[in-house]
């Protein structure tokens, strides 16, 4: 709470603000006194989220339109904003079969999950580097750590995001800008509802709490829930000749 008291007007941009994890991150940030700018495609849905955050937490919330696929619009996304952090949360997950069956749908997923990230990350990088401060966070996935037969199309888009963020982090470090790669395990959100194989899923609230903590502490990588760090460390160490024989 000391951070809240110290800087009561920190403002964060949340892109893809109606997604399951984004909603929980917004709640957590607002609870901790951040003011928010919510960006997304559905203006009505954004306004509902904004109203909810204002009533629950009494913080300032603005909304603005964002279309991941309209690359030309991205340059203006943060015009006039004074941001201490930005979190990219938008994304889609096609089933692997659907992606393999239709390259146009597959490409749409690549563009939403990766191309638009590359575009928006550079807009944010330029602005934050000039100011010499701030945190850029983006949601990748544990699915990007290793390609699995059941989900490699989605995983590949997230692997690209992880690699991009890793390079960007090194580039922006001397400028005083932190870059956080967020790698959630299976989380109970509308994106995964009815899709993920039976197994334990984390709640968006648990995931959001850890994400916000790592944003505020300017960390580099956030595996969430935390158990995914040791699990993925082991899985990443498995040699390919053995990995191809497993059914992880």
């Amino acid at each position, binding site marked *: 709470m000391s951070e809240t008291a110290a800087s009561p007007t920190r403002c964060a941009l949340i892109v*893809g603000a*109606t*997604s399951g994890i984004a909603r929980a991150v917004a709640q957590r940030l607002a609870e901790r006194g951040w003011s928010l700018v919510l960006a997304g495609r559905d203006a009505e*849905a954004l306004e509902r989220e904004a*109203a909810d955050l204002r*009533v629950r937490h009494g913080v300032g919330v603005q909304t603005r339109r964002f279309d991941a696929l309209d690359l030309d619009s991205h340059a203006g996304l943060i015009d006039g904003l004074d941001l201490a952090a930005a979190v990219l949360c938008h994304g*889609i997950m096609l089933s692997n079969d659907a992606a393999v069956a239709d390259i146009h749908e597959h490409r749409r997923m690549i563009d*939403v999950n990766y191309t638009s990230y590359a575009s928006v990350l550079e807009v944010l990088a330029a602005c934050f580097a000039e100011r010499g401060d701030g945190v850029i966070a983006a949601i990748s996935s544990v699915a990007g750590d290793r390609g699995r037969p059941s989900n490699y199309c989605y995983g590949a888009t997230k692997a690209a995001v992880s690699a991009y963020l890793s390079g960007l982090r090194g580039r922006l470090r001397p400028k005083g800008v932190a870059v956080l790669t967020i790698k959630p395990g299976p989380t109970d959100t509308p994106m995964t*509802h009815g899709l993920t194989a039976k197994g334990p899923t984390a709640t968006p609230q648990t995931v959001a709490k850890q994400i916000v903590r790592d944003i505020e502490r300017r960390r580099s990588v956030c595996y969430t829930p935390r158990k995914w760090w040791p699990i993925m460390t082991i899985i990443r160490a498995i040699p390919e000749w053995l990995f191809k024989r497993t059914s992880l």
Partner: protein
Amino acid sequence: MTRPADPPRADRQRLAGWGLQPRVDCDVYRPGSADELAALLRDAHGRHTLISRGLGRSYGDPATNADRAVVLHTGMDRFLAFDDAIGVVTAEAGVSFADLIDALLPRGWFPAVTPGTKFVTLGGAVAADVHGKNHHRDGSFNTCLIAFDLMTPTGDTLTCSREENADVFWATLGGMGLTGFILTVTLKMLRVTSSRIDVSSTRVGSLDAMLEHFAATDEDHRYSVAWIDCLARGAKLGRGVVMQGAHAEGNGTTDLRPDKRRAKSVPIHFPGCALNPLTVKAFNTAYYAKHGSGRHTEGFDPYFYPLDAVHHWNRVYGKRGFVQYQPVFPEQDGAAGVRAVINKLVDARRSSFLAVLKRMGGQAVGPLGFPMAGLTLAVDMPRGAGLEPFLHELDAVVLDHGGRVYLAKDAAMSAETFRAMYPRLDAFRAVQRRLDPDGVMSSTQARRLGIVGDA
């Protein structure tokens, strides 16, 4: 950022009510907006029947739909507007009493009517027209309800209030979700200056003494409820502790902060034998001995929501589950009805360690409304061999005394009993069928009670 055009996806889950049984397989949808709900309604049409579910606190089977579909409203839980000058809040139906209190108590507003757990959604509160410890004075949840928006089974959205679509308004209050999907709820909160409750406890030695105490003092207290020792009989039958309360006067700022306390949880299902006549008797005797008469001040949580302090408290009954049985008796026959039920419980050695008695203030308006001016009793019973026939015997006793059983707790009533207890069923059905000509709405309970279908 899933596209609105994405087909709604269901997740196959095994669901039960808070009583843990019966557990049934349901296709669970979790829409995030009214548009998504409308899409799944179109998709389900003719294939599936549907029922809404909030936080699953109804005890029996009203929020399950065996081998059919359930719409979880927990993804539609946004506050939409709040007017701090008059305490009027509009929120999506998935917002819970816990959310209301977290957001609005620090600003000096408390739910004007609250059930005995704060983990109930506003949609559930409308569907069961829940009541609380102030029913004798203030009535059920509908008395603080201004309006709600209902998506009907045909996909239209109706704003319902006492003035607008009044017949739908009253059919939905207590209608157990069968008139459609409650989207948003507008209600008026109660102004308070402290988060604490002034409580006065009075130990009374018999049912007659308790009723006298209610009659003499209830009107002076906003809240009034009694714990009773369900094992005492004869002259001591109905002995217990009356707990009456009022919101404490505070400074309207720091006094509004809730007491911090960490909820505990029951991590596993207790073995079935943990609650037996001996442990129940020990609990009741100790509770009666411990609680004397007196006055104290406590936080709103222990006063209104004592069991919420223990997450999954239902697991103390083990996997076999339990039922909560809650009848209401009309004033003139109330004492006799309560006596008859307690005697049967003691005879059958099914006495409960949680038994609650309170006076209700007035007759329900809605055709499936539960309350009547009189006495309501709530007792927990573990499930086990012979419980259902026993519940049917209790139903007969309740019916004999002109009473009825609360649908939010009912888990075993027969269709015949239900029709006898709720004589305005036909009025409900007329509204329900007009709203749902194709029979989209259904629940495990609605089929058992013959509310929907060809019964």
